[in-house]
Structures are given as structure tokens and as C-alpha cells.
């Protein structure tokens, strides 16, 4: 009896730190921490600006992207044509407004595919170990041996320039890199005793992977997502530039650079503006990934859980 009173009294000694039902999960904490950094704020501002441009652009564009409004390579003439016309007389500003959607959507899709595939493979190899680990990782090493753009080009040139194929191939080319990060994180978590405890209860393997291990590795994956998104943007734009992405007369930043490169001396804007936008977009995503990475290191240092 006496003991019980004392046990309750000890609550006075150590009041609960957080008494909420739900505490922010680790990835939310990482985002919150990252948000305190200037680099993240700049990155998010850049990313938001370009996404807004791509989303709102078509509504505020002065013309239709396929409408011929002037002679080819006409110089800028505000207020009717802020950036002049392109190689066959489309309005450049209009095509810039329209051309961002595909790059952003395709790179997001490709990154998500890569993430899904890579995380699954990483979890399985990191947890299963032994021959499953060895065989899958060696296969991934083979995929890893090809430069990403070569891998994508290989299949696109065989099967033809189809958008889904580009997205899929860019995603697949990301998978081994993401799998390595996920595997390394899984290896560390899988040797902790709470995984042994779940095994002793007989919890199914897939539940151990997704309920026990996955929540502990989300932060490195968040950083990896930001990084891979940067690469996706570059790759997708490059494939478009090479003519394997969107086909004329569609408006697309990568394609625009290719179409108008011959006239760069007399009318630089249809090349310069898409190049700048793609470049700035990758800088934005990279800054976000960098901020997340730094936040992650900080959180691991402070809480000792990682």
C-alpha cells in the first residue's frame, strides 16, 4: 500500500515531457527541423514558385501554345510578346508557361516509382540477409553499372519514345541507389531487439518490415527522395531534349531547348528561359534535400534515435 503511494508520487518528480496522444513522427520532426534552416526556405520558395508557374501558367498564358503569332525567331516585343517567338513562330512566353507541367509531373512520378521499388528492395535485402540479400544486391550492382541516362536511352530507343516508358526507366535507374540507402538503414534497425521480439511473437515478416522497421528509416529516405527528384528533373529534361520525351508540337522545356538551339544567336530567349528554369528548379529541390539531410543529422545527434 505504502509502495503504491510512493509510485504515484514519483509522477510529481518526473512530469511527462509530452502528453499528447500522438507525437509527430520522425519524418515530421525532420521537416520541422529543416524548416528552421535558410537553405530549406529558399529551396521551398524556388520549388513553389516554379510549380506555381507550371500550374497557373496555362491560365494566364496570352496565347495558345500551338498558335502561330509571329514570324519565326521574332525578337521580344512587350507588351504583346514578352519573350518573342520561337523557330516556327509560337509565343515563347506561352510555351514556357505550358512547358513546366510535364517535367515536374514526370520527374515526380519517376522518383516515386524509384522510391517504391528501391525501398522495397532495400527492406527485403536488409532484413533477409544471406542469399536473398546477396543475389538481389548483385543484380542491382549490374543495373548500377550503367549510367542512368544510358539505361533509359537503351530501352527508349528500342521500344520507342513513350512517356510511361521514360518514367518507368528513370524510376528503375534510381532504384538501386535508393535500395542501397534503405538497405543500410534497415541493416542497422533489423539487429535491434524489438525486431527479435516481434519475431519471437511470430509477427509475419511483411508486418515486421513495414510496421517495425520502416518507421525508423523514413528520414534518410526523405532526404534520398529530395536528392533523386533533383536527378529525375535533369534526366527527364535531358531525354526530352534528345527528342525521346514530349513530341512536337507539344510545349516542353527540354524540347524547347532542342527546337530553338539553332537560333540561339538571333533569338536566345526560347533556349535561355527553359534552361534557367530547369536549372533553378534542380537547385531548389537540391536545397530542400540538403536541408533535410542536415536536419536529420541534427535530430540523430540530439535524440540518440536514428
Amino acid at each position, binding site marked *: 500500500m*505504502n*509502495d*503504491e503511494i*510512493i*509510485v*504515484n*508520487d*514519483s*509522477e*510529481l*518528480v*518526473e*512530469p*511527462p*515531457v*509530452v*502528453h*499528447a*496522444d500522438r*507525437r509527430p*513522427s*520522425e519524418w515530421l520532426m525532420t521537416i520541422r527541423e529543416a524548416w528552421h534552416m535558410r537553405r530549406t526556405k529558399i529551396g521551398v520558395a524556388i520549388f513553389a514558385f516554379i510549380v506555381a508557374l507550371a500550374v497557373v501558367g496555362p491560365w494566364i498564358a496570352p496565347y495558345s501554345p500551338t498558335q502561330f503569332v509571329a514570324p519565326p525567331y521574332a525578337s521580344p516585343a512587350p507588351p504583346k510578346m514578352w519573350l518573342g517567338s520561337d523557330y516556327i513562330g509560337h509565343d515563347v512566353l506561352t510555351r514556357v508557361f505550358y512547358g513546366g507541367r510535364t517535367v515536374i509531373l514526370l520527374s515526380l512520378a519517376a522518383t516515386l516509382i524509384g522510391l517504391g521499388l528501391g525501398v522495397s528492395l532495400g527492406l527485403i535485402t536488409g532484413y533477409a540477409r544471406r542469399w536473398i540479400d546477396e543475389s538481389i544486391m548483385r543484380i542491382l550492382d549490374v543495373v548500377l553499372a550503367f549510367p542512368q541516362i544510358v539505361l533509359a536511352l537503351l530501352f527508349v530507343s528500342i521500344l520507342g519514345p513513350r512517356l510511361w516508358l521514360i518514367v518507368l526507366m528513370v524510376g528503375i535507374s534510381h532504384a538501386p541507389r535508393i535500395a542501397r540507402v534503405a538497405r543500410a538503414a534497415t541493416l542497422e534497425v533489423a539487429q*535491434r*531487439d*524489438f525486431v*527479435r*521480439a*516481434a*519475431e*519471437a*511473437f*511470430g*509477427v509475419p515478416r511483411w508486418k515486421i518490415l513495414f510496421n*517495425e522497421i520502416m*518507421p*525508423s528509416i523514413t528520414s534518410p529516405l526523405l532526404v534520398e527522395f529530395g536528392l533523386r527528384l533533383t536527378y529525375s528533373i535533369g534526366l527527364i529534361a535531358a531525354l526530352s531534349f534528345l527528342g525521346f520525351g514530349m513530341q512536337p508540337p507539344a510545349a516542353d522545356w527540354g524540347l524547347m531547348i532542342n527546337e530553338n538551339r539553332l537560333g540561339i544567336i538571333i533569338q536566345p530567349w526560347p533556349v535561355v528561359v527553359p534552361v534557367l528554369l530547369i536549372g533553378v528548379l534542380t537547385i531548389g529541390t537540391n536545397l530542400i534535400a540538403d536541408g533535410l539531410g542536415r536536419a536529420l543529422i541534427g535530430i540523430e545527434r540530439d*535524440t*540518440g*534515435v536514428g
Partner: protein
Amino acid sequence: MESATTAGPATTAARDVVLNVEGLRIVLDPSGHDIDDDVSLVIRRGEVLGLVGESASGKTTVATSLLDYQRRGAKIAGGRVEIDGQDVLAMSPAALRGIRGGAISYVPQDSSASLNPALRIGTQLMEILECHGFGASTAEREARLAQMMAEVLLPSDKQFLRRYPHQLSGGQQQRVAIAMAFANRPKVIVLDEPTTALDVTTQAHVLDTVRDLTKSYGVAALYVTHDLAVVSNLADRIAVMYAGRVIESGTRDELFAAGHHPYTRKLLASIPDITGERALRGIPGWAPRPGKRPSGCAFTPRCDWAVDHCREEFPPVEELSPGHRVRCWRSKEVGAQAADLDVHLRDKSLSARETEEKQVISVRDVTAFYQRKEALHGITASLCERRCLALVGESGSGKTTLARCIAGLHPHKIVGDIDFFGKALARDARQRPRATRQAIQYIFQSPYSSLNPRKTIGQILSQPLKVFFQLSHDEMEGRMLKALEQVALDSSLLSRYPDQLSGGERQRVAIARGLAAEPTMLICDEVTSWLDVSVQAAVIELLAALQRDMGLSMLFVTHNLALVRSIAQEVAVMNEGRIVEYGLVDAVLDDPQADYTKKLLSDTPTV
């Protein structure tokens, strides 16, 4: 002893004082919460002072500040630290570098982390002599190096000195660290729990070394530990810390026989008694962390003697006899009852064997491998219903391997039979029927690793319930609350995360998770080795009560022979993968047959 100190007044005593700490106050840097306050210590030449306290009592912070070193976020806010009359805290950085490792040296808790893994130990030992300019020539330093190695009972031949730290055992590493600390013939040496990570026999060697060296060199030593038993044979004087203050200090005998602070008394009662007469008593609750300390006397919430006055005002230092100081409003009353307070006799009713009991687990001729190496050699043992078998051994003895074989968690090859109620058990827990997985529950060594940090206590407790039972939401909640109640935890914990709990609470949650499965058998793998002695006692008390009241059979794995009597009825002593002695606890401990058991018994520190 008291009369001797009274006879020789301050003049002779003061000349001998090497280390003098006065009113030391250390605070957390931005918040200003005190970690330590008003800490005053005196150590004389050739004397060992034991600084004892639970986790978060601020004892390590005091220890490192003697070298004017603070960990990140801590700051010395007042007080003096004098070595031979020189104020350490007022020294320039250059002067500090000169005395660190010279006049005052430090032995850290984990020497494997403090030795440079990329340098040979000979190089590291020479380095400390060179940078303090010991001796006139290399030859002189080499002679000192050989002498140092001999003092810590390590070989000093070229081949040994060319080894890297990882080629040494834990005990050897710790002795190298001690050799380094004594290298420059320091005046003061600070030892921060240097034996916590070591086996008892290794610990006994290290303690002997420390005792001999401090006496023969006349060094003043501060020995920091959470375990009173460790310092009981080593320290001349002991200072007990609680919540950043020294609450009682005096000679070893004064504290052990006539402790005047309730906390000192309770700490003593929580030490496992190897003679088996005294029952183990834990201290409920835990030591409050900086910034969370109550006003008045910080021990009030855990104290049986507390009165209103204790909550209001912190008691002043009271000198009971020269050198014996205490801070407690009711010290006179506590001291008057020192002889009979907290002595509870152990219940020995279960110590006899009843022959007709059913065997829960029977292990016959089991040999287990780790990778290709044989870790267990032909083990035969059994556990009867409602009884507790203790597996005792040092690290590498195979005790955990045996426990994991039984639990189905040993991922390597096993040869031999393991039966559960007469039926053969599958090697891997996954291949066992659900009823078997439910019946055998395993509690892991470290509660810091066995609870998923991303899940609430509720989610953690629901795991076995989801796997083993089909329950509605309300029934589930009811079972979880029942499990928490069984381990004496509050229901409000359900929504908390493991890192919001103390180590003892975490281990209780781990036990509750096992109990939620409604097992017939518990396997406890070193469940108290990560806990403070006071918390360990509470967890052992809990496990013993659960085993008795719920009729559980229990396999209790431990390295601490002193704990065995408090929980088990039978004991198997293991060494190098074999059982060297096996029998009833009282019989084995009273009259050990195997040499190894005798050695283990004599090396286990007792009060």
C-alpha cells in the same frame, strides 16, 4: 575510527588534504537548472573516496569538473576545486593541459571507446609520458612504461605493446587505461565507473589494482559508481549523491552500519545479498533529472520518513561526528533505527525441491554453434513448473545462447533435443505453433533496444495481443491496462513513447509485453544489467512476485551471482559453453563444488 579523527585536529589532516572541492555548483547552460549544487568533498593522500549515486544524480558531472571539463550544455557556476591548494577552475587552458593526465588523471567508464583504435597501445602509453615530459630520456620512459605494465599485471614485452586496443580483452583495455592514468604519478585520480562493463572476476582484478596503486603511491582517488557493493571493499570514505547534492558522507563503516539518511539506508537494502539472509528491496520511482527536481529535499517523493517540512526547505549540512555529514531533517530518528530499518528476511519456503513436478523445459545434450564455432557443448538441464532456474556465467559463457536456443531466437545450427512439456521444440520461433510461441516469452537485456522507439507503449503492448488473441478494441485496452498494473505502472503511460520513460520503467514495459501474451514461462536475459542497483532491486522484486503469484516458470539469465538467491530456486553455473555446477541455489552457494563457482563467489563484491 571516529575518535582518531577527533584527536588529530585540522592541522595534521589539512596538510594531508590533496583534493578539496568546496561548494561546487554546475548548471545546464541555457536553462540554468542546476545539475549539481553545493558539492563539497575532501580527499586525503592515499585515500579512496567512493562517490555513489543513481543515474542522473550528477556524479559524473562532478567527477569530470575536477579536471575542469564539462560536457556540452553544462557550465560551472560556482565553487572551488583545489589540488594541493591550487585552484583548478581558475587555471589557464595551457596550465590545465599540463595538469590533466599529469597531476590529475581520469579513467573513463568505457575504455574501449577511450583508447585510440588506430594506435598501438605501446605508442599510446609512451605518448602520455612524452607529452608530460616524464623522465629525461627515452630509456627512462621505457623503463617507466615497463613498470606501469607490471603494476597493472599486464605483460610489457614488445609483442604485447605492439597490439592494438581491439586485440585486448575488456579487462586488459581497462587496465591499460588505468596504467595511463597512473603513468605520470598523479596526485589525484578520478575513476568513473571503470568496472561497470566488466565481468566480476575481471572487476575484482581491476579493483585490486586500483587499491594497491592508490595506497603505494599515496594518490587521492575518487571512485564514481552506482553500486555501493563495488566501493564497499575499496573506499575509505563514501559520499552519497542524490539529485546533485551530497546527502551523506562519512567513513565506510559509518555509512554501512549507521547511515543517517533514508536514501543511504534504502540504497543499502537494494544491494543483492549473496549470503541470502536479507530480502532485496528496491527504491520505488527514480532519481529526478536536472530541471525536474522538486523543491525542498529532492528525495521527499520517494522517502518513507518525509514530513511537510521536507517539502518546504532543503535540509542544511549536519555534522554528526567529525567527517560524518548528513542532510536530512529527520537524521536523528533515521539513525536511531539504523540497526533494524529495512531488514526483511528472505522467504525460503520455495528452496526445497518437490520431486513430482512436471518438467516445462528439458534440454538434453544440446550443442549450439555460432557461425562455425561451437558455443555450447552438450548442455543438459531442465526447468520444472512454477520454479526459477538461474543461468549464471560471465560474458562468453554461453548463457544467453542457451536462453536464445530455448526461445527459438538462435539463428545458427543447434544439435540435440529441446523439449517443452515433453514435446520437441522447433529450432526457429516462426516454425513453432502459436500456442508455444505464446507460452514462452523472452525479456531482452536492454530495454533501450527491445522497445520500438517509434511506437507508443500502447502500440507495443498490443503487439502480442494482436498476434495471439482475437480481441475487440475494449478487451484489448482492458488487457493492456491489466498488464501495466501487473508491473506497477500507471495507465497514463499507454500514450507515451519509450524515450519518455526511465530505464526501469522501460524494462517494466518489456515485462508487461511478455505478460500480455499470458505465458507459462518467462525467459529473462540479463534484464537488470542496464539498470541502477536500486532499480534492479525493484525489478527483481517484481519478477519474483509475478513468478510466485502467477505460477510462472522462469529462466533467469544473469552474470551476477549475488542476485540468484533473491529470485531463483535452482542455479546452473556456466563457463565456456558448459554447465560446471548445477543444483539448488542454497546448496550451490553455501557449499560450491566447482572451482569456477568458488572463484565467482569470492570475486562477487559484497557488503
